């Protein structure tokens, strides 16, 4: 028995020892290698397949050979992308090129001196300079300097509606707030929830406030907040927007269980596609989500329109909120800046634009307008493109525009407003405290 136990112990030890060899072997992942391989972090959702192709194309290109560098793409799980990027950037295994949302999402990296200023690169490079819509390119920068190159489709927030439900109840898409309230009343009589809302994720709730503040007080209200003036939360438009949200909730506009429904897990899109809810305020990616999940609905019964105007409000109905697009930025500590920049140029290429369009995205490239007929839904693609192109103001999603140490508590306050834990007045005073 004694020798048995000892053999057992030694055996376990040998297995474990062998495993330690494996443990350390994995220690060298990530970071720029000595062999000229650069690491790129991309948001690991379905659309990352386009970046995979882009990387493959670049690695095989003459430009890569000239710059003596290739890219290794790392798909970072989407749930936790910002946190993973931050922890990686603070470690020796930082990526050379990384996906981001511009604005507040890159501010801390610039302050830490971890971003390559791309202004001169872009102005001196005809492909990059004239390749993108200027307003979108500008949104990838800070204080007039460029830190990012657009690499995905535009993501304006759009009011989607279920055409079948609207027809059955003889409704027209609303252009004014009164029309919207009237529609709500009729829908509730028909036992249909007016709006699907993925409240478990919180950011779909934020979209309502973004549009309401814009329509009531105009885009300058949030501009002030974004530039660090916390007292601007005290603008009457914010309180009015919060009160409007409260009325909608009390009125049953979002139904009852919305705070347990998620967007990410498909709850809200399903409620909407199955006709249990008639409308859905969501980013333009709702189309591709529905196309993947309920293709018949997406192709035949999905309607879209701008967020309605509010009577007496200062905001133009053409104003847009959402994400202009996503960007590639370059880490200042990269071992091969030339290769990183050469890789960014692929995002302006015709092949890249075509791939985005084929995926249902509307690229922010200047050549996109003529190519939109190739989109799976040209009608929707053109609507989106014009919406962004003609917008007098494009407000970046609040949670991406401000620094994370403001956006996290802000989202918490938004959630408290939507679950009834705080009143509109409490909401405003809590936000004023955020610095």
């Amino acid at each position, binding site marked *: 028995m004694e020798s048995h136990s000892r053999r057992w112990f030694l055996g376990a030890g040998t297995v474990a020892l062998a495993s330690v060899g494996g443990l350390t072997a994995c220690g060298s992942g990530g970071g720029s290698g000595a062999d000229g391989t650069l690491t790129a972090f991309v948001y690991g959702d379905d659309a990352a397949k386009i970046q995979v192709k882009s990387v493959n194309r670049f690695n095989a290109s003459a430009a890569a050979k000239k710059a003596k560098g290739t890219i290794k793409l790392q798909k970072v799980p989407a749930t936790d992308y*910002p*946190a993973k990027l*931050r*922890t990686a*950037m*603070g470690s020796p295994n930082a990526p050379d090129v990384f996906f981001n949302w511009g604005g507040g999402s890159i501010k*801390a*990296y610039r*302050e*830490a*001196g*971890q971003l390559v200023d791309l202004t001169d690169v872009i102005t001196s490079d005809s492909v990059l300079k004239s390749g993108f819509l200027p307003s979108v390119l500008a949104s990838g920068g800070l204080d007039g300097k460029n830190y990012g190159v657009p690499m995905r489709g535009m993501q304006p927030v759009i009011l989607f509606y279920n055409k079948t439900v609207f027809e059955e109840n003889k409704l027209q898409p609303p252009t004014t707030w009164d029309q919207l309230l009237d529609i709500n009343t009729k829908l509730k009589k028909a036992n249909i929830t007016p709006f699907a809302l993925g*409240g*478990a994720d*919180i950011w779909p709730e934020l979209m309502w406030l973004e549009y309401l503040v814009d329509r009531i007080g105009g885009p300058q209200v949030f501009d002030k907040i974004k530039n660090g003036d916390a007292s601007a939360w005290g603008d009457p438009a914010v309180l009015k927007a919060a009160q409007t949200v409260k009325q909608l909730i009390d009125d049953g506009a979002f139904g*009852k*269980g*919305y*705070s*347990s*429904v*998620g967007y990410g*897990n498909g*709850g809200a899109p*399903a*409620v909407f596609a199955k006709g249990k809810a008639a409308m859905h305020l969501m980013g333009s990616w709702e189309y591709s989500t529905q196309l993947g999940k309920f293709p018949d609905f997406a192709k035949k019964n999905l309607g879209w329109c701008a967020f309605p105007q509010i009577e007496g409000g200062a905001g133009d109905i053409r104003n847009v909120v959402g994400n202009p697009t996503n960007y590639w930025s370059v880490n200042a500590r990269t071992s091969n800046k030339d290769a990183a920049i050469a890789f960014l140029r692929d995002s302006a290429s015709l092949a890249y634009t075509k791939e985005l369009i084929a995926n249902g995205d509307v690229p922010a490239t200047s050549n996109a307008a003529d190519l939109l007929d190739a989109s799976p839904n040209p009608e929707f693609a053109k609507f989106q493109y014009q919406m962004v192109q003609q917008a007098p103001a494009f407000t970046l999603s609040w949670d991406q525009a401000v620094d*994370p*140490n403001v956006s*996290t*508590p802000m989202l*918490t306050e938004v*959630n*408290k407003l939507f*679950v009834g*834990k*705080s009143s509109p007045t409490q909401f405003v005073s809590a936000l004023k405290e955020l610095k």
Partner: protein
Amino acid sequence: MSVTQVKGGPRNDAGRPRSARRNRAGRPSAALALPGVLFFAFFAIAPMLLAFYLSFTKWNGLGDPQPAGLANWRKLLGDDRLTQSLTVTVALTVVSWAFQTVISLLLGVWAAGRQRNRAVLSAIFFVPFLLSSTAISLLFYALLDPNFGIIHKDTLGTTSGAFLAIVFVGGWQFIPFHTLIYQGGARQIPEVLYQAAAIDGAGRLRQFFSITLPQLRNTATTSGVLMVVGSLTYFETVLILTQGGPGTDTAILPYLMYEAGFKSYDFGYASAVASFLVLAATALSLLMVKLSGFGAMRSTREGM
């Protein structure tokens, strides 16, 4: 134990060097313990001290921490969310303890019987413990989805619903384990006690309350300590199930720390929360060591 007897009494150690005579046989050199102590000090004690240091700095994860004086501690002590978080943490611990203890105790005593059907059912009852907390949280997240799951209600959207969901999910996972502990405890109750009680005419219920319960006192302490320690680590469940919501109503202390650190990137403040957590946990464990008598370095068999 034989220890005391050994110390005083002269033993036959003929032929052995004199220096060894005063020692008990096989007294190992303290150097054997050194690697373990150093390892623990480096990966557990040092980080606690470092957390304390970081709580006096401002650091967003990039570059080096900058001194910030007492700013984080001032913010912490004036933060309503700390009070709320502390309340939720304590409430969660107490309610989980009560829920798990009652059920594990009953199931454990029941499972201590040697019948075949009990053995089979016990084996089934054990299955939830085989899944990781992450897996269990994901499972219940799906099952509590109002459009998909079993309960078509806004469970996670209400304060009590979210709180009870965390308690339930924690219990679902850990009750099998504590049942096992109680089962082990119940099997060691001397049979004579029951026989004597039966002769006195005590019924089943009476026996349970006057023999089983008092005899399981030490088991209950052990299991209770593990439950309290365990409920401080319901972090995964909160992260996956409620994200601290609705609002901030289920943000337990570890979640508050995670949010400050890895969502707001305010690592200085997160360290202040962490230091607070360490202080609270140390106080708690001192209390528990005192109450449970673990510090007496006794044998596991004694009192079990």
